[in-house]
């Protein structure tokens, strides 16, 4: 928030040639233009919001500018998010000297070059209705099932701290899968979904509720997804969702394994991940 540097329009944050300055104003600027924009961007504190609310109730310019802000956001958030290719991830891993994957790009699908990442805004209009629907029809996880939802989210948040995320850094399931050998008494399924826009980044071993779990880490734009895998039968084969502290969780079962995907990614995006995971061959 801007609050910490004083109000939005003072000191070094005074916009050039706009807003409250003495220079000429253009037709867009009723004097509260940048306050309006800051409100739109969630950057206003309560005091500024009050000032703005009084003004905009009777300002036709503000009303028009709101439409411009909304149109710009809809346009900008719909454009291509350029995802890193597995080859580049491997190349970078090599350059910075971390254990690199064997060259096995043939076994991984090439990245989808289209805009695989559809933002939450205007989602129905962009033909991603299916993803949204998938998220909506998921049943809610019954309270307390599995018991460890809170523990999973806590672990996910802890892992996001520097240095805790990955024990093995690799985009290759042929590197990540053997890494777990001998460290766990079960063999977690490992899939790279780079082709679907969810590149595998690596994995780690963790303990959740006193039980050893395999954690697979995936990227999605600026978001991280973690898939927790452990052997347990909860009798819940179909995916069910939960939300805790702003993180979304989808839990399901497959072949004697419990799987929980945890992320701050929106529910539709997480549902897409789960769908891709379940469809991908082992």
């Amino acid at each position: 928030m801007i609050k910490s540097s004083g109000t939005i329009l003072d000191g070094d944050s005074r916009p050039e040639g706009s807003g409250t300055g003495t220079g000429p104003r253009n037709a867009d600027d009723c004097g509260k233009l940048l306050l309006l924009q800051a409100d739109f961007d969630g950057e206003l504190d309560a005091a500024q919001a009050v000032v703005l609310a009084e003004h905009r109730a009777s300002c036709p310019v503000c009303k028009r500018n709101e439409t411009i802000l909304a149109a710009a956001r809809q346009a900008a958030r719909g454009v291509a998010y350029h995802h890193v290719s597995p080859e580049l991830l491997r190349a970078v891993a090599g350059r910075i000297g971390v254990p690199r994957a064997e060259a096995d790009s043939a076994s991984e699908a090439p990245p989808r070059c289209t805009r695989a990442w559809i933002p939450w805004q205007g989602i129905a209009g962009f033909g991603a209705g299916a993803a949204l629907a998938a998220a909506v029809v998921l049943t809610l996880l019954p309270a307390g099932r599995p018991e460890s939802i809170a523990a999973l989210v806590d672990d996910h948040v802890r892992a996001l701290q520097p240095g805790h995320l990955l024990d093995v850094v690799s985009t290759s399931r042929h590197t990540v899968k053997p890494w777990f050998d001998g460290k766990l008494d079960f063999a977690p399924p490992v899939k790279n979904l780079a082709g679907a826009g969810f590149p595998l980044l690596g994995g780690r071993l963790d303990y959740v509720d006193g039980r050893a779990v395999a954690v697979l880490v995936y990227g999605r734009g600026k978001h991280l997804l973690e898939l927790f895998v452990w052997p347990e039968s909860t009798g819940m084969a179909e995916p069910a969702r939960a939300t805790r502290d702003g993180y979304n969780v989808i839990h399901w079962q497959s072949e004697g394994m419990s799987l929980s995907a945890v992320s701050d990614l929106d529910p539709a995006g997480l549902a897409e991940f789960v769908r891709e995971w379940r469809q991908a061959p082992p």
Partner: protein
Amino acid sequence: MGSDNVFAAVALPHLDAAFNLARWLTGSRADAEDIVQEAMVRALTYFPTYRGGSARAWVLQIVRNTAYRALQARRGERRGEQTGADEAVDVETIPDIAVDPEKALILSDDLCRMDALIERLPPELRETLVLRELEEFSYREISQITATPIGTVMSRLWRARRLLVQAAAEGETR
């Protein structure tokens, strides 16, 4: 984990964001890949001075600097042949033209065209828009990444949005 692995765990999760920014700044996948590789090597060198805070903002700051250096070098090469061909527009003085935002709202559904319109924004405006709308950084973080005062970030953001909507609305009458 060794220190390299600590770096990897801090920086690698932001590789997508790094690539996205580099791609939007250069307009080329191949250039963006070179820039990301160079930036990550640089980041590894600077890592001992990383003091925590948003790792994503820190990584993108390095990516941006690397990208600008590459773009400048290339512009220098080209200047030998042709002079002043693509001088930067003075982004602070772009005039506003009346637009119909309602029309732009409808037209913004055409995403391929929006890609092209954003490509045509001056780089200072383009990066501010990408950092805000695609990466959802706060004003303060954008200010840090672009080494620009918050007030300038705000006016650039408005100009970027305004130009984008304007260009979208103009396209229809063409």
